[in-house]
Structures are given as structure tokens and as C-alpha cells.
């Protein structure tokens, strides 16, 4: 296995984008070529990442498929590798992208060539974030992803696209600059940017709090946590369907991944210290955004707010610092990645036909689109965490994990599950059932081949993961166990020194 498989996986989309850039000629033909090329590359990436998963040894907590190249000076290296925590995000990213590409055939009507380039660039950046084993490289990918996303929202978005694109860009950039300061500081103190070495390195406790806050600002904006979540509804609503899917399914997961990898890994003491802050913000986030979601008139906005609430579960699970909590968080991230992608695609399906996202404009869709209604129902039920779907497993594990630490947090978080049932089912009722009031609904056509191809894999995955959650848990458990052990060792060491 001397093949640099991770590098190939990460940069293959870039090569695809380059080919698309070179295509010339008749617009219709170019669009077709672009579609084929991007679908081909992203599927290839998906197959490679499945291969990666297949060859991955889940019994080891070490990083695998590690590649290393000197890059800047002696310290900063190009280093990639995956462990149990990151490999599933790589698979998730490479799984969602081809689905996005299939779904674009309906929603993107102009400048398709540019769109595919942006999408493939985006894929490289996202894969890079999860593969990188050097914080500098991590930051590069993390930030560089802003450029294609800014363009995707800004060019192909809705009416208020400019405002949303700016808000998205500036919020994220603002959060990230503090992370950059923290990264530079770590580099100067530890003399390395290698994540593997830094995980073993003990950063002086007196710096940990500030450094933790530096990383926190960035991840809190990206997660997004209350009260810096306001960019998300705007970005989701105005982005084209594909953009929303990428945002909800993968971009938000970068932050959760960052919390597990960096906040807990590098700064265990500070994480322990700040855990109540995370709990408070997450609980407020879950309850508040769920209530806000209840009031939404716009379907996409409702799903966007529900994303914030679901990501709240992720953060409290991570900061429970036990294996159930963290495993639950990772599971929740993967499952939310699939479910939110599915929900946004479902909304995209009817939006492409009716060109309105107002819930009030629909009603009685089931009469004209029965197949669609079944799909949508499964996704809605998964989103509210019905047992048997993947949504249940993550939330359940998180709640168990948190219950061990703080039952009050667990109790309050559980109200979020109830609220999510309220807004999801109510949304479904208003859109799918009821009287047909709008004449346009009468002439709706049921979903076509493309849409089924995009939605069916998601549907199958949601149910399979709900019934066999061990597919994921087996892969992540050793690495999570390792994270928890190291964390506990460091905290007990600290307690001992404090007693002395």
C-alpha cells in the first residue's frame, strides 16, 4: 500500500475541476461534458474512499495511511492520515458530493461549468480538512473552502444571495482568525504543527484557556452555536439546493470534528473547564432554535433552524467526555449529514417545480406526488429521531452519555427531541396533507429518475444505519475510546497535582 491514496482522494476532484476548466465549445455540449466529468470524478473518489474504509483497521487507534512530505521550512509538513474519527467524514463527504451533482441537473440553470468547478474545489477542501494531520494544513483547507462556497451562494443563490454570502463569509472568517492566532501560538510554544505530536504534547495549562477560546470562536461559528448561528439560516435559505446540502451535511461537521480532534485533544484541561459553557450554549441553542423553527413560514429556514438544534446535540455529546457521548456525536453528525442532505434535496424537488419555499403555498402534495411523499416522510421521521432510523441512534447515545455527567442537561436536551417532533411533523402535515388550495399543486409531477437516484441511496442509508448502527460504531469505537482515555488520564493528572 505505497500508493498515496489519501492524497489521490483529496486532490482527484481538483484534477476533475481542471479538466472542466479546459472544456470549450457549444454550451449544451459543454454542460453535458462537465456533468459527466464531475460525476465521474466524484464517484471515483467515493469508490476510493470506500476502498479506504475497507482497508482501514478499526482495531487500532493510530492514524493510518499516513503520508508525509516536507513543505515550508523544517516544521510545517504536508501530512495526511485518517483515524477512526475522521475516516467516516471522508466517506460522508465523498458520498454526498456525487448526490449533489446528480441533484444539480434540475436546480442549476446557468453557468453550469463554473458551478461544477466550484463544487469539485469544495470537495477537495472538505476532504482536506478531514485528512490533514497538520494544523496549518487543516487551517488552509478550512479557510480555502470559503471561496467556492461564497461563490456558490452568491452566484446561484436566491434573491438575498449577496447578503447571505457576505454574512457567511465574514462570520466564518472572523471566527477563524482567532483560530489562526491560536495555531501560530501553539506552533511557537510547541515547535511543531504536527497533530500527532501535538496530541502527545502537554500545552501549558495557563495558555490552554485562551487557546481553547481561539479554536472555540472558529468552531462555534461553524457549528453553529447559539448566539452566532444567525448566518446559517440566511446561507441555507439563499443557497441553491446543492449549496444547502453541502453546508448542512459537511461544512457544519468540520466544526464538530474540530472540537473532538483539537479542543479535547490539545486542551483537555480547558475543555473540562469550559464544558459548562458549551452545555449552556447548546441547550439554549437546542430549545431556542427549535421554538424558532416552529414559527417558520419558509421550509428551508425551518430545516436550517432544525440543523442548529441537531448540532446542539453534537456539541453536548462531545463535551460529555465519555465514549457514549462522543460516539453518539459522531454518529449524530454522520446521520444528520445524510438526513439534512435528504431534507434539503426534498425541499429542492418541490421548489424546482413551484419556485416557492413558503409552506403556505403547499398543501395536499400527496395527491399529485405520492412517491415523493413517502420519501419525504421517511426523512422527516428520521430527522425527529424515530427508532429504526439513523437519527435515533445518535441522539440516544448522546443523551445516555450526557446523562452520566449531568442529568439536567440531558433532561433539557430531551425536550429538544419533543420539539423537533413538533416542527417536523407539523411541516409534513402542512406540506403534504390537507386540502389542495393552490392550483399549481394540482399540476405537480411526481419525482423523476434523477431525483430518485439522488434520494434513494440516502433513504436506504438512513434505514440501514438505524437498524445496524454498528457499521459506524465499530469503526469509530477504538479511536473514541483512545480519545477518552487520554483525556481522563490528563484530567486525573491535573487533579493529582492540584491536591499536592
Amino acid at each position, binding site marked *: 500500500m505505497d500508493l498515496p491514496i489519501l492524497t489521490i482522494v483529496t486532490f482527484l476532484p481538483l484534477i476533475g475541476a481542471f479538466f472542466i476548466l479546459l472544456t470549450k465549445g457549444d454550451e449544451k455540449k459543454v454542460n453535458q461534458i462537465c456533468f459527466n466529468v464531475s460525476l465521474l470524478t466524484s464517484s471515483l473518489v467515493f469508490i476510493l474512499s470506500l476502498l479506504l474504509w475497507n482497508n482501514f483497521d478499526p482495531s487500532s487507534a493510530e492514524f493510518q495511511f499516513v503520508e508525509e512530505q516536507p*513543505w515550508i521550512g523544517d516544521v510545517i509538513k504536508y501530512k495526511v492520515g485518517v483515524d477512526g474519527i475522521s475516516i467516516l467524514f471522508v466517506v460522508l463527504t465523498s458520498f454526498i458530493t456525487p448526490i449533489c451533482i446528480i441533484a444539480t441537473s434540475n436546480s442549476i440553470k446557468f453557468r453550469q461549468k463554473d458551478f461544477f468547478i466550484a463544487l469539485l474545489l469544495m470537495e477537495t477542501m472538505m476532504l482536506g480538512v478531514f485528512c490533514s494531520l497538520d494544523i496549518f494544513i487543516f487551517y488552509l483547507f478550512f479557510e*480555502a473552502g470559503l471561496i467556492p462556497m*461564497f461563490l456558490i451562494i*452568491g452566484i446561484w443563490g436566491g434573491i438575498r444571495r*449577496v447578503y447571505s*454570502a*457576505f454574512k457567511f463569509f465574514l462570520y466564518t472568517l*472572523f471566527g477563524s*482568525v482567532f483560530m489562526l492566532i491560536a495555531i501560530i501560538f501553539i506552533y*511557537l510554544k510547541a515547535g511543531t504543527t504536527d497533530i500527532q505530536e501535538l496530541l502527545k504534547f502537554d500545552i501549558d495549562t495557563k495558555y490552554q484557556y485562551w487557546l481553547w477560546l481561539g479554536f472555540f470562536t472558529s468552531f462555534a461559528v461553524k457549528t453553529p452555536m447559539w448566539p452566532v448561528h444567525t448566518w446559517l439560516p440566511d446561507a441555507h435559505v439563499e443557497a441553491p439546493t446543492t449549496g444547502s446540502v453541502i453546508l448542512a451535511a459537511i461544512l457544519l461537521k468540520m466544526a464538530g470534528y474540530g472540537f473532538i480532534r483539537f479542543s479535547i485533544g490539545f486542551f483537555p484541561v480547558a475543555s473540562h473547564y469550559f464544558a459548562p459553557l458549551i452545555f449552556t450554549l447548546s441547550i439554549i441553542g437546542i430549545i431556542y432554535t427549535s421554538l424558532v423553527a416552529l414559527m417558520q413560514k419558509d421550509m428551508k429556514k425551518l430545516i436550517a433552524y432544525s440543523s442548529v438544534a441537531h448540532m446542539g446535540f453534537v456539541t453536548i455529546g462531545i463535551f460529555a467526555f465519555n465514549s457514549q457521548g462522543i460516539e453518539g456525536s459522531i454518529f449524530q453528525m454522520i446521520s444528520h449529514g445524510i438526513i439534512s442532505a435528504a431534507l434539503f434535496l426534498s425541499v429542492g424537488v418541490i421548489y424546482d417545480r413551484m419556485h416557492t419555499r413558503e409552506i403556505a403555498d403547499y398543501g395536499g402534495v400527496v395527491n399529485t406526488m405520492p412517491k415523493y411523499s413517502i420519501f419525504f416522510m421517511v426523512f422527516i421521521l428520521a430527522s425527529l429521531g424515530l427508532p429504526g432510523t439513523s437519527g435515533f441512534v445518535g441522539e440516544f447515545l448522546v443523551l445516555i452519555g450526557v446523562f452520566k455527567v449531568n442529568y439536567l442537561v440531558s433532561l433539557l436536551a430531551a425536550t429538544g427531541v419533543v420539539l423537533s417532533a413538533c416542527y417536523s411533523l407539523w411541516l409534513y402535515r402542512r406540506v403534504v396533507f390537507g386540502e389542495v388550495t393552490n392550483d399549481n399543486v394540482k399540476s405537480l409531477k411526481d419525482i423523476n429518475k434523477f431525483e430518485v437516484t439522488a434520494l434513494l441511496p440516502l433513504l436506504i442509508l438512513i434505514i440501514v444505519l438505524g437498524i445496524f448502527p454498528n457499521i459506524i460504531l465499530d469503526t469509530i469505537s477504538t479511536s473514541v475510546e483512545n480519545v477518552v482515555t487520554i483525556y481522563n488520564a490528563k484530567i486525573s493528572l491535573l487533579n493529582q497535582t492540584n491536591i499536592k
Partner: protein
Amino acid sequence: MNNLNLIYPELFIGISLMVLLIIGVFKKNSFNLITKFTAFSLLIAIPMVYINDNVSVKLFSNNYIIDELSSFLKILILGSSAFALFFTNQYIKDNKIDQFEYPILIMSAILGMFVMISSNNLIGLYLGIELQSLSLYVLASLNRDSVKSTEAGVKYFVLGALSSGLLLYGCSLIYGFTGSTNYYIIAENFDSQNLGLIFGLVFILIGLAFKISAVPFHMWTPDVYEGAPTSVTAFFALAPKVAGFGAIIRILYVAFDNVFVEWQIILIFMSVASMILGAVAAIGQTNIKRLMAYSSISHMGYGLAGLATGINEGVSASILYIFLYVVMKIGSFACILIMKRKNIYVENIRDLSGLSKNHPVIALSFTVFLFSLAGIPPLAGFFAKFYIFMAVIKADLIALAVIGLVTTVISAFYYLRIIKIIYFDPEQEKFDSITSNGIKVSLTFSTLLILFYFLNPSILNYFVNIASKAVQ
């Protein structure tokens, strides 16, 4: 006198300047010829400087220094000026300001800059600055028939003369209290308890800050950038900044090295003020040249932040910053110079709308420059800022780093606004197709450098580190 070969570049530029001047006087309509010769001489001077790259020699009783720093900056000045000549050629012809004085004045300004960078003596520094500034005053008002251009020239001249006066006053104070104008002797005799010397230091810093348009001595910049012909503005944004930085590095790190604490706080203030003003004031601008002026100001702030650290990493970070800044500005001004409809140059940012439809390639490279100026990875501008902030944090100036990075977010806003106009807004009438090869070459060169700098940053860092070691 056996070291004369070291100043061949200066001699060569000086002689060719005079020869070209004579040709220009006697030959009518000789703009083309003289521009070509000037560019040619600048290009010839590059290897002449490069031969001396590995030496560090003091000439004329320690009053003139040729070392790695001076060679690096001189090559940068020559290269950027040559580019400026190439890509502004078309503009000058279109606007019928093709007087032969333009290239000659640029050449004499370059000679002045060479003296500024290499001088190890206050008198040499002053002479260099004056030679440079006088040429620039005339250049600013090159378009004699335009009220704006003449106004820019006069404004620049009046304020510039004032700052030169302050600089000279500072020099005289320093000379009076230390008994010499040589940097080494000043460094030996500098007594930080002496208020007169501190006043001298401050006055000199004011004079130099004016030349690189650091806040609060930036007032001339937006007006001059806007009023001067774009060709001249492009030149203003490039070489003089490099020379100003060279002079500041040398005087601070050689002559005033012992009183680091005294000037550090001044530099931090100017740096913070430039970053904030450059970021905030640019938001409301509608004229792209004015916006570029404010962007220059904020970039000077980042450059000064590196110098304020007082450590070797800071100096090399600043030199790298100024190098990448120059490349980005070459590209941006090349893009500004294609904003031409039916042979009339437009300057409003609105005019760029829909550029991505009409000229996708240019739109792409302009976007690359703008993201790079905003400091978004993986473009070169990010690395420039990264090194600056690394040095700043290493010197324990965390507050400066935080302010600096927050201002990058603010300034990202106005760069994004241009990108928004290029990509998101409806298209307008096409710009004229580009005929000038200079613009094409400059655009290609700078786009590729900015885009692919990240592949191997070590090459440039190697030269920069050598250059910065020269003053330590």
C-alpha cells in the same frame, strides 16, 4: 576605488538616464523609443545587481552599503518598474500623455530609490528621498490638461515638501547631538536619555512614514492615487513603497537599533492606525483607484507590524510581505487598466459588473488578487500575513496580532464587494478587448505567482531570509 564595480547599477542607470534625456530632447515623438530603452536598461540592471547579491560591502567610508537586503529590494524595484512600464504603455498612448519624460522620470525616481535603500548616512538618505520625490511630484501631474492630475501633483508636492522638511529637521537634530550623519556612529552615540535625539528620531520616522503613506501621514494618498493618471498610480503603488521600506528597515535596525523600545511603540501605533483606517475608510469608496489607495495604506500597516517586532523573523516577514504586495498590486493595476470602454478608461467599481461573463479569464485573475489581498488561503497573500503574524506573536505582541487579524476581516468586506460586482451583478457592455501584451504578460505572471506560491514557499523565503539577515 576598486569597489566601484559594486555601484555599476547606479552608475548605469544614471548614465542611461542622461543619454535618454538627450535623445528625448533632440528627437521628436520619441516616447516609444525611450520607453523601450528605459525598460531595456532596467532589465539589464537586474543582473548587474544580482551579481552583487552575495556580498556585503560598505563603500565611501561606510556611508553606502551594498548587501543582500539592498540587492533584493533593488531587484524588486527594477522588476516592478519594468512591469509598470510594460503594462501602462497602452494607457499612456490612449490618453495622449505620451511624453518622453515619463520613462525618464521613472528612471530618475528609481535612482533615488537605490540611494535610499543603500545609504548608510542621513545625507545620502535625504538626497535619495528628494531625488525620488521630486520625480514623483512631476509624474503625478503628468497629465497637464487634467485639473485632477495637476491638483494631485500640487497636493503631493506641498505635503511631500513638508514631510521632507520634517525629515531634514530630524536629521539635523540627530547630527547635532551625535556629531555624525553616519548610521554606525549615530548608533554608537545614541543616548536614549537625550530628548533631542528622540525628537530627531520621531521627525525622521514621520518623514519616512509619509513616503510609505502610513497613517497618520497618509492624507495625500487617496487624492494622489485618484488624481494621477492610472499609469502613474500603478507606479506609485509599487516601487516607492519598496524603497520606503528599505530605508525604514535600515535606519531603524542600524542607526536606531539600540533604542528599539523608543520606536517600537511608534511603529505599533502607525501599524494599528494604518490597518484600521485602511480597512474602514475603503468600505465606502466607489472609485477603484481610491480604494486601491486605502488598500495600500492597510497593507503598509501589516508591513510595519512586522518591523515593529524587532526580531529577525519580523524583518524577513515584512520583506516577504512587501514582495508579495508588489506582485498583487501589479496584477490588480493590470486589471484596472483593462477597464476601458470605447477607448475611454473608466474607474468606478460599478463598471466592473458582469466582468465574469464578458471576460472570464480576467475576472478569475482579478478575483485571485482580491482574495489574496484579503488574505484568504491558499493564496500568497495569506502566507504573507501568516509570516507577519507569526513574528508578531513571537514578539509577544498578541494585541497587535488580534487587531491585525480582525482588520483583515473588515477589509475582506470591501474586497468581497468587488468580487460581488464582478461575479454576482448583471453584465454590462463589454470592455474593449486587450491589445497590450504588457497587460497580458503582467497578469499571467502575477496570477500564476499568487496562485501557486503555496506549492513551494521555501524558494522565496530563502532569498528573503538572506536579505533580512543583512541588517541583524
